[in-house]
């Protein structure tokens, strides 16, 4: 299982036929294991990492730190689930330290993001305070380095 996941994590477009050759399993076994992992939610989704800046699309990202006050019967999960439903919110994490929740928010402009935070997040009953950090540049995302990859200049033929 782990080997298949390892291969898929780096190349979600790879076909079961190729995975079968690489792992020594049959194609049917690979297909069935992938299906099983999809069903169990081990494989959540097949995603594409895109450098939007390179694609000429302008997006503004911000990391928002939230201080949350818990009410009776309203734990972190409840507030986090509610916030996660906003399409502008890319990620929600409960963190240790000076703040409780850390969000990543995406908008078309700084104004968009600021408006969203002020109108939709800061106004939530449990939210006591917000700190917004605008992302100036992303160098690495989901384990993928976004600046030009290092290249090894190998000779075309060597001993």
């Amino acid at each position, binding site marked *: 299982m782990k*080997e298949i996941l*390892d*291969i898929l994590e780096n*190349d979600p477009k*790879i076909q079961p036929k*190729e995975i079968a*050759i*690489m*792992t*020594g399993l049959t194609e049917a076994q690979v297909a069935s294991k992938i299906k099983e992992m999809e069903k169990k939610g081990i494989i959540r989704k097949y995603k594409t990492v895109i450098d939007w800046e390179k694609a000429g699309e302008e997006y503004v990202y911000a990391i928002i730190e939230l201080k949350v006050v818990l009410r009776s019967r309203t734990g972190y999960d409840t507030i986090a689930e509610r916030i996660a439903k906003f399409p502008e919110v890319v990620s929600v994490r409960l963190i240790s330290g000076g703040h409780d929740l850390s969000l990543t928010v995406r908008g078309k402009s700084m104004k968009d993001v600021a408006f969203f935070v002020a109108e939709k997040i800061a106004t939530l009953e449990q939210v006591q305070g917000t700190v917004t950090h605008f992302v100036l540049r992303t160098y690495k995302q989901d384990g993928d380095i976004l600046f030009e990859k*290092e290249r*090894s200049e*190998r*000779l*075309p*033929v*060597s*001993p």
Partner: protein
Amino acid sequence: MSDKFITEAVRNIPPSGIRKFFDLVLEMEGVISLGVGEPDFVTPWHIREACIYSLEKGFTSYTSNLGLLELRELISKSYKKDYNVNYNPINQILVTTGVSEAADLAFRAIINPGDEVIVPEPSYVSYKPSVSLAGGIPVPVRTNRENEFRVTAEQIEESITENTKALVLSYPNNPTGAVLRRKDLEEIAVLANEYDLAVISDEVYCKLTYDGLHTCFSSIPGMKERTVILNGFSKSHAMTGLRLGFATGSKELIGAMTKIHQYAMLCAPITAQMGAVEALKNGNGEMEKMIREYDRRRRLIVDGLNKLGLDCFEPKGAFYAFPSIKITGMTSEEFAGGLLKEEKVAVVPGNVFGDCGEGHLRCSYATSREQLVEALGRIESYLDKISCKVPARSS
């Protein structure tokens, strides 16, 4: 300058077949190369970082001729751990600038003019010229596909004469990917004892062994005293350009090699040695990742070549597939030249590794899966062009 000043030994060495092919490839653009004998991974960052840090701290001086003691101690520990062989870091390990230097030193320390050295083929291109430059006579022993290119004790014994001084072993093998089993090595060890041979065992690909554990030749009882193990960091830790190798052996042999090394090279670069220290201390995780990836590519290329009808036994080590192109009726140079010209895929003709490599190609799978799949497609198209597509072999 006239070549009258050039020694006969140098003049007699033929130019490398790889070099000839390399010049051809350089003239072309858009080539997919399966001709590369080095990892396609860049040296893991933590090793590079160690090199950079060593420069920042001002480590730019000579080291002991033998190499940094810390590095030799780590090498010693790794041999104890991996093979239960004890090498004293004080006088039984020599750090060199790459395995090539270590091989050259071993030949020069062991060979007297006229001594014969047995070299199983196909083999890495430098052994025979290095033996000749040391004044020896290389005696090739042919291995074959039927025996998975494993040299046997019988074959070696047939080539032994009263002048035989040494034997070269190079497994996992470049270019075939062959690996010797422990039993093979034990039989060869009996011969080495019987005929009192020195053994130069190049084990630079030892970490790249896919099925079963690698057996270090000096771990065979009685062999340590007559064996020089050559090894390095190029393949296991993707450090080819850092040029760092080492030799292990008896105090006497290492002492003799060190004499030459201290006059010729003095010591290996300290920056690379600091990188190697880091590689041995913390490099296993990255190394294992690379090996897993090579293993996957190995299966892909071997399966692909066999499906094209190019008989390829499953290599057990290194990162080369060595398929036969005999069904085409072409020589390996004709096939490789044609494939390069027609489809822009570079492979190395098998004959450059010895006569018995004729009819084969060396295809390195130290390149991305995408490139391998693309190269296989182009090879198929070339086979179609020369009307040599044959039904896939049943596996």
